[in-house]
Structure formats: C-alpha cells, structure tokens
C-alpha cells in the first residue's frame, strides 16, 4: 500500500475505527505516515482543548430564566405554511408563457387566406313607387334586364305556331335566367338568387316537359335530344371561386338543371294555379309562359294570362317610362302578350256560341284586362313625350285583339265602355307620374349592408 492511500484513511477516519490491516501494516513500517498520524492527533486534541474552555455560568442560568418565561408553540401540529406565492407565481407565469407561445405558433402556422373577403351585398334598399295607391316594387337593373327579355320571349311565345318554336322560346327564357343568375353570382344582389333559381326550376319542370308532351310522336325524340343538349349547356355557370354561401346557390342552379334533364321523359307535373296569389313581375312573366304553354283549355289560359298581365301592368308602366329601355319594342311586346295571351284564347273559346257560363267567364276576363288597358290609356294622357310611344304601341297592339274579344264576349255587359275600361272605377286617375315626381324630390335612403350573411 502506498502512503497516499494510507493518508486517505488517516485524514478521513478516527484512529479507533476499523482501519484495514494493510493500513495498520503500512503505518508500522512507514515513519512518515506515522508522523502524519501523530500531527493529526495533536491538532485534534489541541483544537478540542481550545474550544473546551468553560463558559460563564450566568449564561446558562440566564437561558433557563428565559425558558421559564417563554411559552411553547401550541400543539404538535406544524404551523401552517404560508401560501407559496413564489411557486404560484412561477406556475402562472409559465402557463401564460406556454399559452402565448402556442398562440404565436398557431398564428405562424395558420394558412394565409386564399382570397380577400368580399362584401356581399345582401340587402339592397329597394325603391318603391306608388301607382294608384299601391306600392310597386321597382326592379333592380338586373331584374329590369330580365323583365325586358322575358317580355320579349313571352311575346314571341304567344305567337309561336309550332311546338319546336315554343320549346326554343322556353329554352331561351331558361338561358336568360342562366345569364341573370350568373350576373347575380358575380355582381349581386345575391339575395335574389334563391328566387331566380326557383323560377328557373318552375320553368324547366312545368313548361318545357309540357311542350314535349304536346309534340308529335315522330318529332318528339328529336326535340327531346335537342332539349337535353341545350339543358346540359345551361349548367355552365363559370368556375370562379365564390363564397361558400353563394357556392351553394350555384350548386342549386346546376342541380335544378340536372333534375330537369332527368325528368324530360316523364309526364310533367304542373303546379295548380291559385287565383289571387301575389306575384312579382318575374313570377308573373314565368307564370304567363307556363300558363300559355301548359294550359290546354283556352279560357283557363286566358284567365291565367290575364291575371299575370294585371300584375305586370304597374311595373310595365314604370319600365316603359325608364330611360335607356327599348320603350317602343317593350310596349309592342307587352301589347302582343295581352292580344295573343288573353284576347286570342277568349276568341277561340267563344268562337262557336259558347254556353252562358263560358260567356260570363270570358266577359269577366275581358273586364279585368280592360282595366289594365284603361290604366295605360289614362297614363298615356299625362305621360311625357318620350314615354308616349311605348304606351301607344302597347295600346295599339291590344286594340285588334280587344275588338275581336269584345265582339265575341259581349252579352249582358256590366257597364264597359268602348275601350273596355270600367267607368265607375273608384281609384281611376293619372297619379303615377305626379307621385314619381314627389318621390324623386325625396332624398334617397342610405343602403344598409346586412352583415349577418
């Protein structure tokens, strides 16, 4: 054993400890290690003597006096530890740091928006006009375009002699709806989308199949194939990315088209017509087309078309007075709708000495239509010069038909004059243009965007 190993035992353990035999043997043979052992023993003894000097007796006595005066802590239980504010603060700060780190990490990893949020014009302040004490909704620019096109299509529809022509016209109307829906999707107002798609669906499901039903067997296959081809093209509404809520409307339009294709070879299901139902201008135009295409009974066709004309007349007065619209053509076409949609079916229904109920019904329809015509005549008197041609053309178009229809239906008349207008109408009077002037002086109402959608 070396001296270094022995000194370890000398410094760390007391002499009376169980030193190993090697250490004891080394100490017996090594005078240097024995000297270290002796030095350590001396130091320990002298330091112990150094600190073993007796203290003052008064100190211990004074301690016992203090003990006698000092009460002990109550009970064996440990005093309640103070709330560990430092530890609690450390936990709170750590948790907040972790949350902040996670939030920052989430923001960094969040994908960037692929498109800028676009404000959807959902609610548009609709202008109203007053016509004979009734509020008339003024169509938007997109609606005015569609109304003009549908009037044109209906005028052509009522003059079509063949099934193919009527079918083409109805599909042209459907294509007008596709254009209208595309405009609404891209530029709005998108709140009109569901209404436009529903009218489009009614047109395809009621009017188109009925025309195919009326087709001759030898031409039906060809017409059906052509219709299927055109309907397939109608599903194209573009592929521009749209907000989700608008994307649903695009899907609804395409679904309506596909459903119409699937129902082409099935018997059409025409919704029963209810008298007096409220109709917007577009509804009236679509119902006019459906009635004229699907109604087999001439008098019923005249009645439904006359109801549509009545609903359309106030709006047509506004449209015919608008600048930028083809007033003459629109007037002509609206007059043709009345002439061939109302007067001509009445003429057919009353051609061969009809029974009295038919004559009465025909007379009632004529009276109702005469009110619309008389309304146009009254307005014609106060209309500005640039508005007059459209109204004149509409009246001119209805005149021939009126003469024929009145001649057939006139029996026990109820006070109709030569122009068909009821003389005792309580609200007659040329108020439209004066009211429009009052409204034009009123400051417009600021539009209120609807942020819910």
């Amino acid at each position, binding site marked *: 054993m070396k001296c270094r190993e022995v000194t370890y035992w000398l410094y760390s353990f007391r002499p009376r400890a169980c030193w190993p035999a090697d250490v004891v043997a080394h100490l017996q043979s090594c005078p240097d290690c024995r000297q270290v052992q002796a030095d*350590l023993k*001396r*130091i*320990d003894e002298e*330091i112990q003597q150094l*600190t073993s000097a*007796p203290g003052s007796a008064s*100190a211990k006595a004074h301690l016992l006096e203090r003990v006698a005066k000092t009460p002990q802590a109550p009970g*064996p239980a440990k005093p309640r530890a103070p709330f560990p504010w430092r530890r609690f603060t450390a936990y709170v700060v750590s948790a907040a740091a972790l949350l902040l780190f996670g939030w920052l990490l989430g923001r960094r990893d969040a994908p960037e928006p692929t498109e800028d949020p676009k404000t959807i014009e959902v609610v548009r302040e609709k202008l109203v006009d007053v016509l004979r004490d009734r509020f008339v909704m003024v169509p938007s620019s997109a609606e005015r375009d569609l109304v003009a096109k549908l009037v044109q299509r209906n005028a052509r529809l009522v003059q079509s002699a063949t099934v193919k022509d009527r079918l083409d016209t109805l599909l042209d109307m459907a294509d007008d709806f596709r254009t209208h829906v595309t405009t609404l999707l891209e530029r709005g107002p998108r709140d009109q989308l569901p209404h436009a798609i529903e009218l489009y669906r009614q047109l395809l499901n009621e009017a188109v199949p009925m025309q195919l039903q009326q087709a001759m067997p030898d031409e039906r296959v060809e017409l059906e194939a052509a219709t299927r081809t055109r309907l397939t093209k109608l599903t194209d509404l573009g592929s521009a990315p749209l907000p989700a809520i608008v994307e649903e409307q695009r899907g609804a339009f395409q679904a309506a088209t596909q459903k119409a294709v699937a129902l082409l070879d099935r018997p059409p299901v025409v919704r029963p017509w209810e008298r007096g139902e409220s109709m917007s201008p577009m509804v009236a135009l679509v119902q006019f087309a459906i009635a004229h295409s699907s109604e087999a009974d001439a008098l019923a066709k005249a009645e439904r078309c006359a109801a549509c004309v009545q609903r359309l007349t106030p709006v047509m007065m506004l449209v015919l007075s608008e600048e930028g619209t083809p007033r003459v053509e629109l007037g002509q076409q609206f007059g043709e709708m009345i002439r061939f949609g109302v007067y001509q079916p009445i003429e057919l229904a009353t051609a061969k000495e009809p029974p009295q109920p038919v004559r009465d019904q025909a007379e009632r329809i004529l009276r109702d239509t005469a009110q619309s015509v008389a309304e146009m005549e009254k307005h014609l008197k106060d209309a500005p010069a640039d508005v007059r041609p459209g109204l004149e053309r509409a009246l001119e178009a209805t005149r021939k038909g009126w003469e024929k229809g009145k001649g057939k239906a006139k029996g026990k008349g109820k006070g109709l004059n030569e122009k068909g207008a009821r003389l005792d109408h309580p609200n007659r009077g040329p108020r439209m243009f004066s009211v429009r002037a009052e409204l034009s002086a009123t400051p417009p109402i600021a539009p209120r965007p609807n942020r819910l959608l």
Partner: protein
Amino acid sequence: MNVHAPEETSWVEHAAQGDRDAFARLVDRYWDKVRRFLLGMSGKNHLAEEVAQEAFLKAWTALPTLREPATFRVWLFQIARRCWVDARRRSWAHLRVPMEGELEGKHDGPLMSILDDESQAQLQAALALLPTKFRAAYLLWTQEEMPYAEIASILGISEETARWRVCKARQDLVHTLTAYLHQ
C-alpha cells in the same frame, strides 16, 4: 444517533409537553457542546453564548413540533447552526480575524501563559482560516465525535460530502500548522 437514547428520549418527550425541568436537563447536557461548537465557528465566546441561548430558546419553543425525539441532538445542532448563520448575517463578527484574547488557554505560569497564548493564537488562526463549511464539519466530527451520517443531517449534505469536508479541513490544518507542529 443519540447515544443517550433512553433517558434523553424521555426528557425530550416531557419537555415537548411543557416540562421545563426536563428541558433543563437537556440544557445541562448540550449547553457546553453547543457553545463549544459555536465558539469554534465564531471564535468569540460571548457571541457563542448569545447564539447558544437563542438556539436553546428556539428549541424550547419549537420542541412540541419535533416528531422524532431520538433525533433531538441533530435537531438541536441544526437550530444552532441556523442561529449562527443568522447571527453572522446580522454582524460581521465571523470575520477571519485572530481570536486573540477570546479563547482561554491553560495558564499554569507566566512562561506557560505566554507560550499558551502563542499556540492558541496559531490554532485560532488556522481554524479561522478554514472555510466555514469545512470548519463546521470538522468541529462536529472532532468535538462531538459525530458520525458522518449525523454531520450530513445537520449540515444538509450527503454523507460522502461530509467525509470529504472533514478530510479537507484536516489537510488544511496540517498544512497551516506545519511550522507550529515542528517548531
């Protein structure tokens, strides 16, 4: 471990219940030990007595909270050490200055008195030069002849660390007192 376990445990239990006589017996047994330890740590007799009084008083106050009466010695020296640390913070009396005139030696005659003073001064200086943590371990080991396990408990260190500190303290003392030992 407590070498006086049977009777000391009984004194501790009685003292914990408020028996001042039992605590007086504990004071008689440990007063010199604690004061000697504190004297070795501080080098000042009056300071050692003050800190010892404070330590015993705290032990009396907190004795009902002691769960293991057999560990009274370790517990008491823990209190004494903490009291000395607090006292050192309050004053700089722990500075490593020679403990001249504080530690009393044997005074058998004028010549022996001079020699004792010189020897004590060197011993005091060597002890004061030890780092505090080494000095505490060495004093507990050499004065109280405590095992390393108890030293470790009092100082709050491991047993091996306690052994190493004692070893280092004795090496430093031998190195410092070489001239003294071989003069």
